[in-house]
């Protein structure tokens, strides 16, 4: 074993019912490096971290830390081994302050069993000094910014004397400036001898801070490289295994027709930004912008799913109020929500029950009873139209893959008179193949006259799919791009420009 190698994973595999999540993964982390773990959603990064964190031990393979073979059967095992993990979902207690969170479960007490608050507070402030961060130690963490909460998480890990720190997509919810601060902290820790595994989707960040990169694809190793020996294109190819361009169906030529949905004015708050846009039949209108730029809120406001201050909307030329999602449905507007699990699906329900959730009126006769055979028939038809892959329509949706779950929610609206569909992050967390299927489906729908609003944080998707793109910046639509002006640079330029 070389002296400068901290952690070695050999032939590590992990299976879940029906899925082989990790297939004989090899990984070697050197002491004091910042090592990027890269891969698409579902590539196995999270599983790998859960193994290192002792949350789900591996089925096969060995982990060697500091030359000693280890097996992490619980979170405590890995904490004792000096591994600290900052998960994507924070584990902070919102009403406790930073100090209390850092020492949670390991409070320092005096001989009477009372808390030694001053000592803990001093320790906490030393930790933040080490990170080069200043923050309010007495403020409940719920009132800190997301970035500050992340720093608290990092401090919490450091308080455990970690020598390997794992950051799981830390920049996903940070602004560029906050990310830059995080990178400074990472470099500072590196100079203090802490080894870091950094997980991110953003390739430019990886080039910014990392030394080496390991790429995972479909649960297997797809390559290891030094940052200075590769470029973005090679990495993308390693991640997806093929060139990106082939993913998107061709864009049709659209004739200008009167809008399906005409939002003449909408503002969510008093004195808040006022927006307007139109959606034409047969087109995909992209809502692009940074996370937090108000894309989802605007769409939900149009649908009546969240309260609005003022709203003036026509559907097919007729003025409508769209006061709640039920009325939007009556007017033919459907929503594929951002979070499948918490907003889209009833996870305990079968595929059939999920699809027919808002269609039951169609199947019930004079007595108000559901005609089950008609419901089954319609469900089977929709499942085959959308190629939803499942053992039967009675399968519970929790057991489906992300792509199929997404299709179940889409199917709900196709069994209606809907003409307008709002797809919020339609391909988040689904694999490449399923993405392509969703894209093809979207084009099939627009060819039939549907108008689709697609909210997406993935630039390639916005550029590859949309006929027009509304770029959001701090709650306002700052630009609507069309035709050849739709490209990543234009979108990013308007999305990040400072708004007057």
């Amino acid at each position, binding site marked *: 074993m070389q002296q400068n190698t901290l952690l070695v994973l050999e032939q590590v595999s992990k299976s879940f019912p029906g899925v082989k999540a990790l297939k004989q993964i090899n990984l070697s982390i050197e002491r004091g490096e910042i090592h990027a773990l890269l891969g698409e959603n579902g590539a196995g990064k999270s599983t790998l971290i859960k193994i290192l964190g002792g949350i789900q031990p591996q089925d096969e393979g060995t982990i060697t830390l500091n030359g000693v073979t280890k097996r992490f059967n619980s979170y405590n095992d890995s904490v004792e081994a000096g591994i600290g993990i900052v998960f994507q979902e924070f584990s902070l207690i919102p009403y406790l302050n930073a100090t209390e969170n850092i020492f949670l479960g390991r409070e320092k007490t005096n001989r009477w069993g009372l808390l030694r608050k001053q000592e803990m507070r001093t320790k906490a402030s030393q930790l933040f000094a080490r990170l080069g961060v200043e923050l309010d130690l007495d403020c409940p963490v719920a009132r800190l910014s997301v970035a500050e909460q992340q720093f608290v998480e990092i401090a919490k890990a450091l308080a455990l004397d970690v020598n390997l720190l794992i950051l799981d997509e830390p920049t996903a919810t940070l602004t560029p400036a906050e990310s830059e601060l995080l990178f400074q902290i990472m470099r500072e820790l590196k100079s203090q001898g802490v080894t870091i595994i950094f997980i991110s989707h953003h390739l430019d960040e990886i080039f910014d801070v990392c030394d080496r990169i390991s790429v995972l694809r479909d649960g297997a190793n797809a390559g290891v490289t030094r940052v200075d020996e590769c470029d973005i294109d090679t990495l993308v190819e390693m991640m997806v295994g093929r060139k990106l361009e082939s993913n998107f169906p061709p864009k049709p030529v659209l004739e200008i*027709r009167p809008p*399906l949905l005409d939002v003449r004015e909408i503002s969510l708050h008093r004195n808040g930004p006022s927006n307007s846009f139109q959606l034409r*039949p047969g087109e995909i209108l992209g809502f692009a912008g940074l996370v937090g730029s108000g894309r989802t809120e605007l769409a939900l406001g149009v649908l009546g*799913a969240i309260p609005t201050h003022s709203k003036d909307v026509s559907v*097919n030329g007729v003025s409508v109020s769209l006061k*709640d*999602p*039920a009325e*939007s*449905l*009556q007017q033919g507007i*459907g*929503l594929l*929500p951002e979070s499948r699990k*918490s*907003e*889209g*699906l*009833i*996870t*305990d*329900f079968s595929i059939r*029950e999920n699809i*027919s*959730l*808002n269609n*039951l*009126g169609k199947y*019930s006769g004079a007595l*108000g*009873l*559901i005609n*089950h055979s008609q419901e089954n028939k319609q469900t*089977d*038809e929709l499942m*085959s*139209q*959308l*190629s939803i892959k499942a*053992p*039967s*329509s*009675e399968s519970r949706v929790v057991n489906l893959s992300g792509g199929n779950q997404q299709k179940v929610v889409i199917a*709900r609206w*196709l069994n209606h*008179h809907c*003409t307008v569909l709002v797809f919020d992050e339609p391909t988040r967390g689904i694999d490449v193949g399923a993405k392509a299927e969703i894209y093809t489906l979207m084009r*099939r*729908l627009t060819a*039939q*006259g*549907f108008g689709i609003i697609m909210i997406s944080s993935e630039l390639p998707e916005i550029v590859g799919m949309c006929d027009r793109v509304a770029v959001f910046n701090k709650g306002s639509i700052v630009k609507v791009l069309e035709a050849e002006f739709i490209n990543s640079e234009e979108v990013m330029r308007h999305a990040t420009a400072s708004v007057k």
Partner: protein
Amino acid sequence: MQPQALNNDSLKATKAKSPQGWFTRFMRSPAFYPLVGLIVVTICMIFASDKFLTSANLENIARQVSINAIIAVGMTCVILTGGIDLSVGPVMALSGTLTAALLVAGVPGPIAIMAGLLLGAAFGIGNGIFVAYLKMPPIIVTLATMGIARGLGLMYTNGYPVSGLPEWFSFFGRGEFLGIQIPILAMVLVYIAAFILLQHTPIGRYIYAIGGNEEAVRLSGVRAPRYKLLVYGISGLTAAVAGLLLTSRLMSGQPNAGVSFELDAIAAVVLGGAAIAGGRGAILGTLVGAMLLGVLNNGLNLMSVSPYVQSVIKGAIILLAIFVSRKHHNR
């Protein structure tokens, strides 16, 4: 502009339903474990007391169970949406007392009975307004209305039972139809109605769906608060039906009746396999849960077990049942 139906190119790939025997399906139903429990407890009782397995005693159990079982129907609907209704005991007492008082005052029978039932339903709908539209936590709302209903009943009667009811009124509590006691018949009818509502109407589907994921229901264009309001109305109504039967059985309106009935009803629902967080459960499971409690009561009485000990045994069995059902669900 109306999009045509999706083209059916891929329809050829229609897959056969995976074969699933009725027994497998039954085993997966929330009512399965409770039923096993009921059978086990019943067998124990048969061996423990030779008086248990007589037709008179079994009929006794069914009648004793009927009040709690009927209240538990409304409670099931409420719990399926993820709510809870603590006000059922006092609402039962209040509506029964109202019917009794109206009858004593000479109001025509059907009107007095309707008034009692409507009062129960109205109380439930009141709960529903606070929970569904004013977004208040059900446990707080119904805790408050529990006190209000109890207080109103006591105010109205000064705490004294209302007696002197017309002779014909004993029909509901003591009468028979086709050889079946009316409370048992009423229980069966209420369960059939609830079964149809929950399994064969859109309303039932929404009730389960709201408990499963209310936000998804709302965003899919179903007006969820409407159905939440409805389940509390149903709960008030079934409590009032139970109040009618009890008042008739006792031939007096008891403003103090139904103390801790909400706990028995919740116990029946939970013993019946429903998830207290909502979304999962079965109306027949609740019937089994109520029967289980009834059999325990009856059997322990036959064995002359002290009521103090009975209370401990029942509590322990509820804990055990919930433990087993959690193990089952988490698999």
